[in-house]
């Protein structure tokens, strides 16, 4: 957002002036992430994860394109070419571990980013479009990560492909033909692997496109902040550069330290050992689970074990997809005019319960499909839907929020009178 006090871009020399007249790209960057973009001064560390998610996307695209130079998408040789990357290609072991763990870190960052949005109600007006585009990005990221995991053609790859395409076979009448169309055969084989490679290459660029829309939509109202109170005057903001470029840079440094520890010392911690066994179409591993970042949704999928009007299989698939599609409705389910969870005591209690509920789903998704895990995930699934469809609308209409600060400046300094107005302010006469 261009607040009236946003700094004006002035070309420094003849060359930048010449460029600015022909194609004002430096001006665009200056106004988007430079000093020309005023941002609330009270953003906490939960506001670091958008930039980190963007970083992860770039990391995955760069390492992904590089890996595609050495990988062959053919069921006969795919597993072998991945081992070839690990053993023969210069730095191949590092690049492969970077890409594989990069996906885990991407999802870790996305989840924190999403939970930030849940708690601070970042989805509320006027930021609904940012939220909707964010959910689209999340769905695309899930599809991309799934297809990437198929490429090494290990046991988990193969059976993951079978199960996930099998989700579509639950659709009445057209389900079976759709699964066959997706796989290009009756079971995962060369045709499936080949097309998953093509789509795994394509989708990150689609994600990049939606990310551009996401950031564009963000720049219209400007960033939200931990108080949920909108920006009122210049003292509420600081320019993005250098204040938040520096803070995001620091956050990136912390992120990279943790990421490098995992890539270099624990590269297989987050993966599944069964994927080091080549795909065997005749034998499903005894304990098949998806990647950790799909656990909660996997638990929802298999919580449905009994027929009730519809088949259990279809219920599971519908529940799993709607557990995420539900997020699209969030701006309209939460009707409280107060944004930040800091000023909503009842909402905050239920938010914490939701986090616990999702942790339970996460745990059950990774556990075997046996009692008591099935029953626990049934209860947790029921609560998950209850939270969004019943509790949230009720809480948002009955709760009495705590008093909000007058402005961001007051929230930071205790009083608006102490406001240090910005350098663009005219001295009082």
């Amino acid at each position: 957002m261009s607040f009236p006090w946003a700094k004006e871009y002035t070309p420094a020399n003849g060359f930048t002036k010449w460029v600015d007249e022909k194609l004002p790209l430096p001006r665009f960057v200056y106004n988007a992430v430079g000093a020309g973009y005023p941002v609330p001064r009270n953003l906490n560390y939960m506001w670091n994860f958008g930039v980190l998610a963007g970083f992860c996307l770039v990391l995955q695209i760069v390492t992904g394109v590089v890996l595609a130079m050495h990988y062959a998408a053919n069921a006969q040789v795919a597993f072998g070419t991945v081992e070839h990357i690990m053993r023969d290609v210069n730095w191949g072991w590092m690049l492969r571990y970077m890409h594989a763990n990069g996906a885990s870190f991407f999802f870790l960052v996305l989840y924190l980013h999403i939970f930030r949005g849940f708690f601070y109600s970042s989805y509320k007006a006027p930021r609904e479009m940012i939220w909707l585009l964010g959910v689209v990005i999340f769905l695309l990221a899930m599809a991309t990560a799934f297809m990437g995991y198929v490429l090494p053609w290990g046991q988990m790859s193969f059976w993951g492909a079978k199960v996930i395409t099998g989700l579509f076979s639950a659709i009445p009448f057209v389900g079976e033909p759709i699964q066959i169309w997706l796989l290009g055969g009756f079971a995962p084989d060369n045709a499936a692997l080949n097309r998953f490679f093509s789509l795994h290459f394509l989708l990150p660029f689609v994600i990049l496109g939606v990310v551009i829309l996401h950031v564009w939509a963000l720049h219209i109202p400007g960033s939200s902040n931990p108080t949920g109170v909108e920006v009122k005057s210049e003292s509420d903001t600081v320019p993005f550069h250098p204040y938040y470029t520096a803070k995001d840079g620091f956050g990136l440094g912390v992120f990279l330290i943790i990421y490098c520890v995992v890539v270099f010392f624990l590269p297989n911690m987050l993966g599944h050992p069964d994927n080091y066994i080549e795909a065997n179409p005749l034998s499903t591993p005894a304990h098949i689970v998806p990647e950790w970042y799909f656990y909660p949704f996997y638990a929802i999928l298999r919580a449905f074990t009994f027929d009730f009007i519809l088949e259990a299989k279809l219920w599971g698939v519908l529940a799993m997809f709607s557990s995420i599609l539900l997020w699209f409705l969030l701006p309209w389910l939460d009707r409280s005019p107060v944004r930040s969870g800091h000023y909503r005591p009842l909402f905050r209690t239920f938010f914490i319960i939701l986090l616990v509920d999702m942790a339970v789903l996460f745990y059950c998704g990774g556990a075997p499909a046996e009692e008591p895990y099935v029953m626990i995930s049934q209860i947790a699934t029921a609560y998950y839907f209850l939270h969004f469809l019943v509790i949230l609308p009720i809480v948002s209409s009955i709760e009495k929020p705590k008093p909000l600060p007058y402005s961001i400046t007051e929230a930071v300094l205790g009083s608006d009178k102490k406001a240090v107005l910005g350098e663009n302010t005219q001295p009082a006469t």
Partner: protein
Amino acid sequence: MADATGAAAAEPKNIGETSETGEGGVRRRDFINIAAVSAAGVGGAAVLYPLISQMAPSADVLAESTTEVDVSAIEPGQAIKAVFRKQPLFVRRLTPKEIEEANAVPLSALRDPETLAERTKDGHLDMLVTMGVCTHLGCVPLGAAEGENKGEFGGYFCPCHGSSYDTAARIRKGPAPTNLVVPDYVFSSDTTITVG
């Protein structure tokens, strides 16, 4: 469009529009507009169809095959896994106790009611031939090989989402909707079956 039509009716701008305006302000060129958009739509669909259809099974995948399985070496209580159209096929010789168990189940207790006799060939009640593909999301159930978990109904157990099948490979518990599929097959001799 509405504005243009309205303006044309109220205040004709050129000769063509005056003469072509029919009842209710509909002009003959409105039809041309609809026809042009329809033609573009049909053309677009014709281009889209091959782009979608290319992902369907190709000719080499569709070239169906049959599989011959020698069942003479299977002892009662044993099962073998064969391959049929790139998917596992379970051939199991039931013990008298397993046949008895399968027949003792009332049809009303089944999600997908079928008797053991309906799932086997006449005179071969002990020879159970099914696809080894769980009808839930397509994993290979355990229970065919020695020492594998057969589930609580003594047949097959799918590790992916916990479906249990009984000794006639009928679904008894878990999310799978139907029994394990019995493919088309015939006994080409007493000891060989031809599947497909």
